[in-house]
């Protein structure tokens, strides 16, 4: 409960910051829309000459693009601003305050910043899913939507854990910018269904990098073609990821040397 109230406060602070920079907000929302347009265009062009790729029709791939953008928006909203900031806290000594609040330090560093303009992307991405879903002849059901949402949540949590694991290394390393870029590069692969990839790469993208949980499986849920057992796997993986990263974080914090003032 207290953690929820703390999160709410951070949300209100982010809102206050948005109000402070309204133009910035508008530009971000517009950029999001342009990006969405370009993404749709890519797929439209891809399917100009063929009706399906690896068993996915045009409308289905468009849906997947929508799901990818929902996950991307959630990550941009809550995960990436914080992951970028963590090495900074360590370098500049802001971690001092984080560690001295009577709230889990891992929680604070993970939720402190929110990129609210990403909410615009979230809305447009949902619109894209609905549009493409109707084209693909999806029969919407609360169960399917809930299952898709659960898959996406697992995917987001897993992606967060992976990123958090990397960023936690900043207690030992000085700069991590390039590693964050690598993370983005791999996540980009999630725009395409995992079945576009073959062999080892597919296994890696599904489990090592939980891209399939974030995008392929939720789309299949909406299409009524998902393997429900995979959801159990996803939940177990996400829980394990959270525990593992917590252990690593606690260990890393012991190595904090607190940049001198």
């Amino acid at each position, binding site marked *: 409960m207290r953690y929820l*109230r703390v999160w709410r406060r951070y949300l209100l602070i982010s809102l206050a910051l948005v109000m402070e920079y309204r133009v910035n907000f508008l530009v971000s929302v517009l950029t999001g829309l342009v990006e969405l347009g370009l993404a749709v265009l890519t797929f439209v062009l891809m399917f100009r000459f063929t009706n399906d790729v690896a068993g996915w029709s045009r409308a289905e791939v468009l849906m997947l693009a929508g799901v990818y953008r929902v996950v991307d928006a959630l990550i941009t909203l809550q995960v990436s601003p914080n992951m970028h900031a963590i090495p900074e806290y360590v370098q500049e000594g802001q971690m001092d305050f984080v560690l001295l609040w009577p709230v889990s330090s891992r929680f604070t560093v993970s939720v402190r910043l929110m990129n609210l303009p990403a909410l615009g992307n979230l809305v447009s991405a949902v619109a894209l899913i609905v549009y493409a879903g109707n084209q693909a002849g999806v029969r919407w059901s609360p169960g399917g939507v809930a299952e898709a949402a659960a898959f996406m949540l697992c995917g987001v949590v897993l992606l967060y854990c992976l990123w958090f694991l990397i960023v936690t290394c900043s207690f030992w390393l000085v700069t991590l910018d390039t590693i964050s870029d690598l993370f983005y590069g791999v996540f980009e692969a999630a725009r395409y269904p995992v079945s576009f990839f073959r062999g080892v790469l597919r296994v890696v993208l599904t489990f090592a990098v939980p891209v399939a949980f974030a995008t392929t499986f939720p789309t299949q849920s909406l299409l009524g073609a998902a393997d429900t057992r995979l959801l159990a796997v996803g939940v177990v993986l996400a829980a394990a990821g959270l525990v593992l990263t917590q252990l690593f974080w606690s260990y890393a914090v012991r190595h904090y*040397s607190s940049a001198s003032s």
Partner: protein
Amino acid sequence: MLTTRYEYAIEVEGLSKTYAYHHKEPGLRGSLRSLFRRRILERRAVDGISFRIETGEVVGFLGPNGAGKTTTLKMLSGLLYLTSGHAEVLGHTPSRREPEYLRQIALVMGQKSMLWWDIPAMETLLLHKEMYDLPDKEFRATVRELGEMLDVGHLLGVQVRKLSLGERMKMELLVALVHRPKVLFLDEPTIGLDVVSQQRVREFLSELNRREGTTVLLTSHYMDDVEALCPRVLVIDQGRIHFDGALTELVESTAPEKLVTVVFAQPVPGDELAAALGGVELIPTEDPLRVRLSVPRERVAGVTAGIVRLGGVADLTIQDVPVEEIVRRVFTASGREVAG
């Protein structure tokens, strides 16, 4: 008096902190070499210090840069793990950072801000309200009280970046104290502030200590801070404590002389003056009418009487050696135990 689980607010025994760092030779070759074969060196920032601080005491940490003051403060607040030794604050082991412990302490650093730059300080206060789980009524009463004491109550709704440096530091204190900590660690709280703001911060801290009985451990470069606030000082250099005791005791043991300044109405013949001084050394000044003397404590009365007997004295002041000078002496006598 209430019985508490701990006897002292802060108890430190043989506290040490060693930092490991890599030695890197300059240039490309050095970089490559250190990539493959690293020389790991150690630096003892704090080297086996021990002291005890009672509840409600205000203690000043004096020492040059790199003496180990900030490192000690960070170990006591729980930010850094100790390399060896034992530390207990309010009956807790700081490095465990138990929430009950963290609720009772605060760390304020003059060079780091926990305020959000672009929004009013009130937002940060409300965040702290949730973090420390403060009841609404209590929170509002505390904010009002501290806001009045610090004279920043009217600035709570102003964006932090629009505040002056002094106002921001006071705001920083307000935010840090909103959960009413029992122990306050201050690292250079007045750094960079103008004289008036420094004065205000000092007055606030001493009032806080008087009203709430807050135990305060502070480091500062400004002797005025220490003189105004701390009856007791710890002098630390190269990770070791060189003096632990009352400021007055430090002054007496390290500076057995007083500074006497005399201004004459008209010039006094040199031989008459020398006779009156009886061997006490003169510190030359540019003004021929002004005479400065460094007089051993026990001879101050005799020497000043002799000077007055010469006649024509316009002004006479007797001062202690400035604390800056005393601390400099402690450090130049490095390695030698000065007192305590």
